[in-house]
């Protein structure tokens, strides 16, 4: 009896834990959706900020006169125009209902951030470990991130293709590719 009661208690606790987890996950999904819906607005505000910063730095350059323009003439005019248009854009974005951009529905965000990060890492490591090693490693990781399962195919493709690109660019097209000083 006591055992049954204990079992019942643990089940209830498990149930409560499950519901809490579901609530938490639900909230996270809702927050994510809300953020995605706001994306167009966030991007519009970022574009406006870019225009403001550009206008500030343009104002440091000399405008000259209308009859004798200076180096700041075009940047000032263009950044002011961009600022005015961006304000209109922000107002329009906030006036309509927040809707997530259509393509966002199918984005695999983990893949997006991992692939973007790998692109950046690939560039940063070019001079540190040289083109060939960098390409083999990053190409292998990119193929894995893009969703290929197993090891043999990604390893073979990354090694053979890196060697091929290196040969075409350095030997055939005579383009010197980055190499690490220690290699």
């Amino acid at each position: 009896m006591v055992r049954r009661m204990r079992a019942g208690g643990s089940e209830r606790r498990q149930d409560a834990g499950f519901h809490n987890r579901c609530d938490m996950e639900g909230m996270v999904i809702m927050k994510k959706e809300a953020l995605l819906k706001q994306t167009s607005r966030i991007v519009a505000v970022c574009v406006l900020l870019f225009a403001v910063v550009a206008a500030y730095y343009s104002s440091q350059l000399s405008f000259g006169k209308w009859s004798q323009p200076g180096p700041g003439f075009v940047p000032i005019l263009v950044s002011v125009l961009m600022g005015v248009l961006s304000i209109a854009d922000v107002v329009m974005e906030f006036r309509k209902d927040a809707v997530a951009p259509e393509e966002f529905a199918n984005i695999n965000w983990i893949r997006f951030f991992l692939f973007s990060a790998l692109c950046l890492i690939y560039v940063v490591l070019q001079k540190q470990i040289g083109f060939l090693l960098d390409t083999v490693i990053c190409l292998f990781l990119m193929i894995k991130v893009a969703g290929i399962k197993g090891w043999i195919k990604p390893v073979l493709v990354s090694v053979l293709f890196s060697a091929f690109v290196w040969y075409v660019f350095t030997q055939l097209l005579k383009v010197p590719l980055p190499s690490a000083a220690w290699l």
Partner: protein
Amino acid sequence: MIESLGLLGSGFLLCLTPINLLCAFLGVFLGTLAGVLPGLGISGTVAILLPITYGMDPLTALIMVSGIFFGAQYGGAITSVLVNIPGEATSIVTTFDGYPLARKGMGGKALGIAAISSFIGGTVGLLFLTFCASWLARVAVSFGKPEFFAIVIFGLFVLTNVGGKKKVKSMIMLCFGLLLGCVGLDDVFGTLRFTFGNTNLYGGINFVVFVMGVFGITELIKTVSIKEDKGDILSFKFRDLYPTKEDFRKVWKTIARGSIFGFLVGLVPGPGSILATFGSYGIEKKLSKHPELLGTGVLEGVAAPESANNASMYAQMVPLLSLGLPFSSSVALLMSAFILHGITPGPMLITAHPEIFWGLIASMFIGNIMLLVINLPLVGIWASMLKIDFAILMPIITIITFTGGYAINNRVFELGLMVVLGFIGFFLNVTGYDLAAACLGVFLCGTLEDSLCGTMTLYHGSLIEMMANRPVAAVILLLAVFIVLFTSASSLRAAVKKRLKKRMDSAQE
């Protein structure tokens, strides 16, 4: 006229060497290969493949670049017919009838008609281009800074006001591009702008790097992270690739109409090619004896957009070759390829270097013929490309893009710039900002600044004085203002109508 034909003949003599023919074939082959892949677009394809031409002789390089350009165009038609995915925006209309034809088991016929329509459209466009560009270039020799300023303003205004729904976003992106184009040591005043002490930025943002970032990297990130259904790849019979006399009899009028209409509409800066494909399909629907059949899989529905598309591509080269001003991102990239090989398109090209101008025209003819004669039998290879797993293909293209980007100036900094631009481009692209307008902004910034500052100095800061003294510039500027006012008024009217309708509906409820 006879003189022009003679010069064109000498251009052919220059081009018809074994190495040039081989490069034309390679260009068309690689261009189609990349054009078949989703997302990259013509600009991305040309940007990625441009480094291959670096070590080549200028004319050979131009032949290859033209081949890549037109091959990429045809690649879009293949995916439209076989998978219902338009590789380029200009191939959207081809899916309307191309895919239903393939579903009926007539995919081979659709591809054959697409190639032949492209060839005829291209040839008609090229003939118009030859005479228009040489005539306009002769007129443009007398143009000064005010006229160039007016043409740039006209082109940019039309670009941002015609075609797209999001005019404000397009204008913003144009300004964004113009500001990025200001980065570096400025040519007019010799002042450093927006470099923040970074020596890597002294030379400005390289246009090819910019295109590789916002078209290449953006699209690669998008393709890897957005899972799209590839769809079924429909099979086709090779013996159907060459249409019968009966087929040709059905479509020749359509092709003729599409070619002429395509060229005329293609002269509109910016989205001219896209407008041409939709417009020619619309005309076909109006003139057809059985308009209800269009959209269910008829050959006319493939012939109309494909002929218009290719003719319009040549029309877009008219301002490039005669004025040195590109008004679409892919043509701007073509111009940067020319500059890279020491050739500056513009009014002086035809008068000072006629051999290069006519060599270039001849190379386009060769590329066009190559597309038909060699490319068509290889359709099977392109179709099999679609079967390769994109999860392997996309990382490989990413590496080629970066290596090509490095080959431009041998600078790792520019690769970092490509990643940053690709990341920013991704968010701008999915939220509806027009990246092509940004590209043109970067490219035309120098010309705009030079012509604007020159005009202001010349006419004491008064545009009215300039317009009073320069009638050609005045007419072009007034036309630009008229187009902006007209499009703004029509969208305002549509918005007011929509609001009134909404109010009426709510009042009725």
